[in-house]
């Protein structure tokens, strides 16, 4: 990241977007990508809020921190001197805050909690819960400081998985049947104003595998139907093939000839004698064939993703798993590809 000082002047694919919603099928690394995106957006002296809403404490795990409270706190410094804040939204706390902020009802709020109102809200009408947590998130997006400027340059929301995200964001619709007028409806309309505006982009995290790709494409359709703004597709854990195409093509057809490899193994001093070398070459040939099949499948999945017409970003598989250093590596990759 050589020219971080120029970040502000640089065009990214999502200039003007303030709410980045990140979704993905389970197991695709949605929280990791959300965290890396927050770091990338903050780089060069910006202030970014990373929000999680499912009570999993995923952000704390990714940044290797103790569990986060319901409070915006600084958790990381971005490359080039920006700040990432984090918030684990809790529906119950959000409700208490909401009651206090709009109605000055702290005591009543506590009573509601004791009565199990949150149990109630999540059980009987999950739409209410969604309104509360998306409400908190969009409030952070809109919040302005004393100088009249937005407090956060961007907010990244680690959202529910792909299958649920359109429903989660489409709160107006979710509560429409329940509340046609009144404060809940008003609150939902405010949320809706933010999430359907060009200030929002819903990004998908996927792997180059059939099911996550299919879910991504289905998710994009659902967003379109719900009138929500689609963002980019982040393909995670990509392993580049080092093998030449002619080898892969031959291997897929079961026609890989291990003779050349046998010679190479002997030259490298890995095998003594012909039998030993060719046995090793045979075993490696098996790996090559599997690799070739997977590479072909990945190519097919890439093409399906390309057909969606959405901007695409590819993030490498981290050799050592996701640790803090790996997170910065992903952030750099996101930055270099122009997503932030």
């Amino acid at each position, binding site marked *: 990241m050589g020219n971080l000082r120029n970040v502000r002047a640089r065009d990214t694919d999502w200039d003007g977007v303030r709410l980045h919603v990140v979704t993905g099928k389970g197991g695709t690394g949605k929280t990791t990508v959300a965290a890396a995106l927050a770091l990338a957006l903050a780089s060069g002296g910006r202030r970014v809020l990373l929000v999680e809403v*499912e009570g999993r404490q995923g952000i704390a795990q990714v940044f290797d921190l103790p569990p986060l409270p319901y409070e915006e706190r600084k958790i990381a410094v971005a490359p080039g001197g920006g700040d990432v804040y984090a918030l684990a939204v809790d529906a119950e706390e959000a409700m208490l805050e909401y009651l206090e902020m709009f109605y000055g009802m702290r005591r009543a709020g506590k009573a509601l909690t004791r009565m199990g109102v949150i149990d109630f809200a999540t059980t009987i009408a999950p739409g209410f819960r969604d309104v509360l947590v998306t409400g908190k998130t969009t409030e952070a997006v809109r919040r302005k400081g004393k100088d009249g400027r937005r407090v956060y340059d961007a907010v990244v929301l680690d959202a529910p998985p792909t299958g649920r995200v359109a429903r989660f964001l489409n709160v107006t619709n979710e509560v429409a049947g329940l509340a046609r*007028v009144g404060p809940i409806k008003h609150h939902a309309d405010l949320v809706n104003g933010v999430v359907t505006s060009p200030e929002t982009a819903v990004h998908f995290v996927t792997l180059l595998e059939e099911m996550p790709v299919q879910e991504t494409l289905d998710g994009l359709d659902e967003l379109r139907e719900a009138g929500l703004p689609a963002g980019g597709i982040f393909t995670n854990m990509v392993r580049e093939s080092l093998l*030449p195409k002619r080898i892969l093509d031959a291997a897929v057809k079961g026609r890989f000839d291990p003779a050349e490899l046998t010679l190479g193994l002997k030259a490298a001093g890995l095998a003594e004698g012909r039998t030993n070398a060719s046995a090793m070459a045979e075993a490696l040939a098996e790996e090559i064939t599997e690799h070739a099949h997977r590479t072909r499948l990945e190519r097919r999945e890439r093409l399906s993703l390309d057909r969606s017409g959405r901007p695409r970003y590819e993030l490498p598989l981290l050799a050592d798993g996701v640790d803090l250093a790996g997170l910065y590596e992903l952030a750099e990759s996101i930055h270099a590809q122009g997503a932030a």
Partner: protein
Amino acid sequence: MKTAPVLDLDAIIDDPGTRIIVCCGSGGVGKTTTAAALGLRAAERGRSAVVLTVDPARRLAQSMGLSELDNTPRPVVGVAGEGRLHAMMLDMKRTFDEIIEAHADPDRARQILTNPFYQSLSSSFSGTQEYMAMEKLGQLRRSDEWDLIIVDTPPSRSALDFLDAPERLGRFLDGRLIRLLTAPAKAGGRSAFKLLNAGLGIVAGALTKLLGAQVLKDLQTFVSALDAVFGGFRARAEQTYQLLQAPGTAFVVVAAPERDAMREASYFVERLAEERMPLAGLVVNRVHHAPAAALSAARSTAAAEDLESRGEHDLTSAVLRMHAGRMYLAAREQREQEHFVSAHPTVPVTQVPAMPEDVHDLSGLRRIGELLSAR
């Protein structure tokens, strides 16, 4: 690696005493595929099995010949041998509707089914889905049409929701809040809140402000109608819970050899023990092996570097790099599994190797079944 006992799934599916197998685990680890493969294998080994899936991927559903979500067990065509296999996809709303219709007189049922709160509750994804999956499981078990039911748990944000949901829903319907909300019906239609003490009054006031008067009224109507129907709601939840604890039930925790999934699996194993649910063992899906495992990652990398520096045998050095990557991945997966085994040394484990492609048809499922049982 500390050696975990081997999970012998064939012994479990062959045991006529096994009546229910619950596959659970975090999202994206191949739970549904595991459930379907176990179902097929059980049927082909002579059982009369039904697989209840909650939210299968389209192609997996197609591989069992399921094309629609119609809440009815459909025979799976192409099963070899004496046994039989049915499969069904849960229709959460219809299952809920059926409970209402079975327990309420037509008038009251209509009142409930058309209420906006009921519609939200019955078609939402959290809580209700878990409850309805358990309800359906109970129905299938009571029907006694199959001697083995294999159920795939909902893709919850946390695997535990599925154990908690029935109780939560039950607790909620029996709760104080319900008493508060049903008060108007019991007070003959007059405003209930006048009759309540000061503490409840505050809550009622807050609810009115928060929800608005119309919402509160809809809610009261709904809750009082539902309350009458679900007199024994908690008892029902309790029954399902006991069914899961019964000796004929086997929980199979499914994971992938990655940190999050293994952590979730660990958590689940502990939780099942706490709840005295019978755990059969852990299935680790998508494990990477290297056929040329005798060649270590370090040696492979060193040899590749050597060839590269000499500018010879490009292909061999690329293959050696690929192999080293695969060995590193296998080692990392191994470490994740070792963590689990150290923490839970008595839990039987079985592994399924990673496959390049997803399952599309019965023969793919059959292959997974063989791998699940391979020793």
